[in-house]
């Protein structure tokens, strides 16, 4: 009898190994990312933060100053990557809470971690793609071909985009259903990070730069363009290490904090 019950249960709930479970949740997180990219790339906050702000900041920070071409490329790339990779993540949770689509999502066989990862992938792809534009423009205009290490730059973009995306997800932890209020928090945190970062200048000239994750991306780009790192011979490893630390640190923190605030989104 027990065997019959067991067989029945297995036919209803087929057993899956941990690896199968992980892989199916990863696939589902990619489905969420696709959905996010389809829906959010043209939303107001994303357009403002992902496209307009980098342009405005670029002109505000560079016009009238004599800046070495290498710092123009790394500074612009860092700003574009940071602002675009952090533009989708903070708005998806409040937007979907308001639209009542989060409740539909949460009733699917996916965990909150899967939803967060989906948001990270969307931000990651958005940031990575957008930041290619200033790289291409910079290379065409300033011709860094001789010392160019494209592999380092591409890996740097991918790692940094992941790291910045993870940082952005934490901004949507407060269980708000108003994207505008999340945007205020976003601006309060993101803008100071930009201002303390060594954008369009040597890293050594900004003492507070070490606390900003942008610094390590700038150093990777500088290294990819010139072969020199501000942190010595192992500088590039330090850059990647710190960016990954930032990324995974914020990702796990997001898992924890979103898990805690999720229920508050369904009180209404």
């Amino acid at each position, binding site marked *: 009898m027990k065997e019959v019950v067991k067989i029945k*249960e297995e036919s*209803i*709930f087929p057993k899956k190994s941990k690896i199968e*479970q992980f892989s*199916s949740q990863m*696939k*589902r997180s990619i*489905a*969420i990312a*696709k*959905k996010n990219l*389809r*829906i959010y790339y043209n939303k107001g906050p994303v357009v403002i933060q992902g496209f307009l702000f980098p342009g405005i900041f670029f002109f505000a920070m560079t016009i009238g100053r004599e800046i070495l071409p290498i710092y123009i490329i790394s500074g612009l790339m860092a700003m574009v990557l940071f602002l675009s990779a952090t533009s989708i993540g903070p708005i998806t949770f409040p937007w979907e809470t308001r*639209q*009542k*689509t989060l*409740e*539909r*999502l*949460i*009733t*699917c*066989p*996916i*965990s909150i971690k899967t939803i967060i990862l989906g948001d990270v992938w969307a931000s990651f792809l958005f940031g990575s793609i957008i930041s290619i534009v200033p790289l291409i423009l910079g290379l065409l205009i300033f011709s860094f071909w001789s010392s160019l290490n494209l592999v380092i730059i591409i890996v740097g973009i991918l790692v940094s985009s992941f790291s910045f995306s993870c940082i952005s997800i934490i901004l949507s932890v407060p269980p708000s259903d108003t994207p505008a209020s999340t945007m205020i928090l976003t601006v309060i945190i993101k803008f100071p990070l930009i201002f303390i970062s060594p954008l369009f200048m040597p890293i050594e000239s900004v003492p507070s730069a070490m606390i900003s994750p942008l610094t390590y991306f700038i150093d990777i780009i500088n290294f990819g363009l010139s072969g020199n790192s501000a942190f010595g011979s192992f500088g590039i490893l330090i850059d990647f290490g710190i960016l990954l630390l930032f990324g995974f640190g914020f990702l796990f923190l997001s898992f924890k904090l979103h898990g805690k605030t999720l*229920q508050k989104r*369904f*009180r*209404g």
Partner: protein
Amino acid sequence: MNVIKVENLSKYFGEVHAVDEVNFSVNKGEIFGFLGPNGAGKTTTFRMMTGVLKPTNGQIKIFEKNVWKDPIPIKQIIGNVPEMANVYPDLTGMQNLTLIGELYGVPKKINKERAEKLLKQFELFEKRNFKTRKYSKGMKQRLLLCMALMNDPIILFLDEPIVGLDVQSAKIIKQLLKEYNQNGTTIFLTTHDMEVANELCDRIAIINKGKIVSLDTPENLKKLFQEFQEIDISFNQDINKEEFEKLSSIKKVQKVKDGFSVIVYEVNLAIIQITDFAKTNKLEIKRLNTHQPRLEEVFLKIIERGS
């Protein structure tokens, strides 16, 4: 066989006991109605059962698995139409469905085929490539139901699926729910619409102020309230209403357009007494119809009694 078992389920929001020690079970293959007035705790119970709101106390088991301890395998076999949910307005009907299919791990080829089949079944195929912000409420509700069916669920949870819908959408949904149920899908349905409950449900639980106040088949619930049995009668001439009301089987007489609406204690006895009354008073009975109590009356009575 119980497929859903709810034990001592409670949900408190601060001082408010939205759901209080609720117990019931749903059998395999039945349509179980969860009825109650607005604010009774229907949707809160529904949201706890579908893994949205975490219960304060108690447990919900689906096929013996605790919904809150092992949610993913359970969510994999259920489909649901939450009242407080929406489709993605910036995606097309087709994109909404294939997204849900992907989230349930439906293989790519089957995903598209199933989405198309459901869109045809629910008469949405023509509008499949329209963004759903252009859909009417009825179309959105039908699409939500399609989304709930994308994983070919064993159990279907529906929260007020027909509320506020146009006649056509309501008809399509009710018809298809019956078909899915006939094919073996167990359905848990919350509603405050008696017609829907009466038409669709095998058993009904009535909840009020967070507590279950009654649980039975619609027929038995009606039997519980025989006093609501009603006779519609008219005579060939005017009668003395006071005399008529004195008959022992009659509870209340109300004059209607061309006759009387009579609430009786016991129908058969009332018919005998009314026939005798007519003979004695040399009256001719022009019309005599009996009415079963309507579920709505039963519901109101139960709620009144519970209060």
